[in-house]
């Protein structure tokens, strides 16, 4: 115990910390919106949740303070680069802006149509920015979207985040984040699909209404949520649930949910000639709503299977067609060709070949379960 005194100089070592960032000094950004402006400028919008200062009555106890909904501060500013604007905003806000808790990053549709990747550079460069934040394209402008009134919501970014998460789980949009999308934006052999969000004026609510298709780094088309689901089926990316509703013969409607699906993409690259692809999908579904009932009869299910197959085939084909029209190789057919024959791919002008190439879709749907009743 002679050396007990060494504790004193050693504990001095523990105190040093240049890089502490205490939450009380920070303004955490939860949501970001980016829009391109003319002359290479851009508008940055940030949403910062605020503490409820002085709004609770002193005698009310702690209950009142925690029950109250969090307020948020939305600010927009124009500038040359994202970080330039961020520093401008910083001069207006008490406490430093901090990006590390970002949950949603939104980009206006028009801005996404001209090189989305370039807008995100600041976030990829900064090691503290969370690349697992959700990336969405806004129908309209992002700054206006943050200014909209959402019924019953105070912390918008949180609301959008939950909306996106639910849609992901229901396979209405692909599961993606900044990092995953970035990989695809930069890939020569496949293209990104990024969720699309819009404002519903009547309901005063945000709405996920499909996905944006990308050609290289720029947005070039759109899919509806059904088509996005169809894309997910073909790309084997379905999540827990995937509901589909079709109108079958006799003006009857049936809703099914996917139990299991397997998609196979086959690409053939002939020596002389254009490449061709076949997507074959095998879906097993559960009927979740079918008012006419009678699904215990073989005859009924057989015809239903057949009609569902036809309808699904139509949907899948329509999706593929849309992707080709947008020149968006979301299924990664180019990547398959590279994997098979990189030299041929180099010779192909992929942007020219892909929209006109022959992509066959083969679908098979089978009702496997009918729920608690037939």
């Amino acid at each position, binding site marked *: 115990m002679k050396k007990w005194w060494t504790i004193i100089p050693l504990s001095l*070592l523990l105190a*040093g*910390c*240049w*890089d502490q960032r205490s939450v009380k000094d920070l303004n955490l950004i939860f949501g970001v919106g980016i829009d391109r402006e003319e002359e290479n400028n851009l508008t940055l919008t940030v949403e910062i949740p605020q503490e409820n200062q002085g709004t609770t009555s002193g005698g009310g106890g702690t209950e009142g303070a925690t029950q109250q909904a969090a307020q948020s501060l939305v600010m927009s500013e124009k500038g040359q680069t994202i970080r330039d604007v961020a520093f401008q905003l910083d001069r207006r806000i008490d406490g430093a802006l901090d990006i*590390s808790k970002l949950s949603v990053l939104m980009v206006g549709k028009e801005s996404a149509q001209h090189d989305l990747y370039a807008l995100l550079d600041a976030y*990829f460069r900064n*090691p503290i920015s*969370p*690349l*697992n934040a959700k990336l969405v394209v806004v129908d309209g402008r992002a700054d206006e979207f943050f200014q909209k009134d959402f019924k019953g919501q105070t912390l918008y970014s949180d609301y959008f985040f939950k909306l996106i998460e639910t849609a992901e789980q229901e396979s209405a949009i692909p599961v993606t*984040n*900044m*990092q*995953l999308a*970035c*990989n*695809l934006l*930069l*890939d*020569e*052999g*496949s293209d990104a699909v990024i969720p699309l969000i819009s404002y519903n004026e009547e309901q005063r609510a945000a709405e996920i209404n499909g996905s944006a298709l990308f050609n290289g780094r720029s947005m070039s088309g759109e899919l509806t949520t059904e088509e996005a689901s169809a894309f997910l089926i073909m790309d084997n990316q379905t999540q827990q649930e995937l509901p589909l509703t079709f109108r079958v013969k006799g003006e009857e409607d049936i809703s099914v949910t996917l139990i299991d699906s397997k998609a196979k993409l086959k690409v053939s690259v002939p020596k002389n000639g254009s490449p061709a692809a076949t997507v074959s999908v095998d879906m097993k579904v559960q009927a979740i709503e079918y008012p006419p009932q009678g699904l215990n009869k073989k005859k009924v299910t057989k015809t239903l299977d057949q009609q569902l197959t036809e309808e699904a085939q139509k949907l899948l084909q329509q999706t593929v067609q849309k992707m080709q029209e947008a020149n968006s190789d979301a299924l*990664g057919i180019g*990547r*398959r060709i*590279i*994997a*098979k*024959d*990189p030299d041929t791919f180099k010779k192909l002008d992929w942007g020219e070949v892909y929209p006109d190439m022959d992509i066959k879709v083969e679908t098979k749907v089978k009702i496997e379960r009918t729920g608690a009743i037939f």
Partner: protein
Amino acid sequence: MGGKMKREASISTWQLFFFLLQTQVGVGILTLPYEVHQAAGKDGWLSILLAGFFIQTGIFIIWILACRFPEKTLADFLPLLVGRVLSIIIIAFYTLFFFVVASQVLAIFLSITVKWAFPRTPSIVFAVIITALTIYLIQEDVRVIARFHVLMSFLLLGVLLVFLLMWNHLNVYYLLPVGSSGFKDILSGSPKALFALNGIEILLWLFPFTQAENKKKWIAAAGASLVVTVIYTLLALCAFAYFSAVKLTHVPEPVLYMIKSIELGIVERLDLIFLSIWAVFSITSFMSYLYIAAMGAAKMVNAKHHKKSVYVLGVLIVPLAVYTSNAETIKILGSITGKAAIAFLFAIPLFLLLVAIIRRKREGTG
């Protein structure tokens, strides 16, 4: 030399295994996939395997050489082979090499911690803390160091965890077709992997301290190197199957970047957790290199114990590492040490082995 010095503490085969493993697994984990990708594209992982194969032959040469002198370290048997003067020169070169590599490890460690986690902390603070810690440990004998290395090896599980977490996001088609980069590019990528896999040369010092049959020592060394090669190759495969080729050219620390996008419920910045695991691996290899450098330095000045040379080298290494911890110098020094590693791993041991065979030198024949 009948009157052998009092035998220093010895280590077991397993301790040798983990000692070598911890020396090899170091700062390179984070950057290796990027480095090999630059040279060999998506076939960079083949470069790592190739480098691993080179290392295995190096181990074999060192093992045959060391088997001739099972009771002596390199510094002890060198005079028997090449005479006093040349042996001092060779030892000096080895000492310098290990010292520079140790400083390089520390410099890379500093530059990455500044970049990823502590942008405002002066790097000298980390340099001093880590060197102080290292000095504290490596002034002890080899057994203590080996125990520490064994203890820290459970962290390798953390590296393996990365594969499980990344599994869903991997795209095998990024890797195909295998070998399309051409053998030349793959070959040119392997020297870069050599720096990351470097460290097996310390077997020349550890060999006599290990209490086991010669064959078991070889198995331990070859096994350690094999494990490291496999882990590195898997990490590279993981990074290549995750990032598209263009993206990989932008990210110098692909492994951290890849982990950054994982979300795990409560844990948000998984990259920082991985960074602290990586810090332990870097520090253990820093310790090993500095320890061997101190042993060599002590031998050169005929000191009885390596304690004093540890202090001297420790004081010298801090300014050197801080001064060289910028991207440019790291790159230049890296290519130099990478080339030097080939000499110290293959050329010199092979030369010594030939001398030993020609002059029929074995332990006891001197």
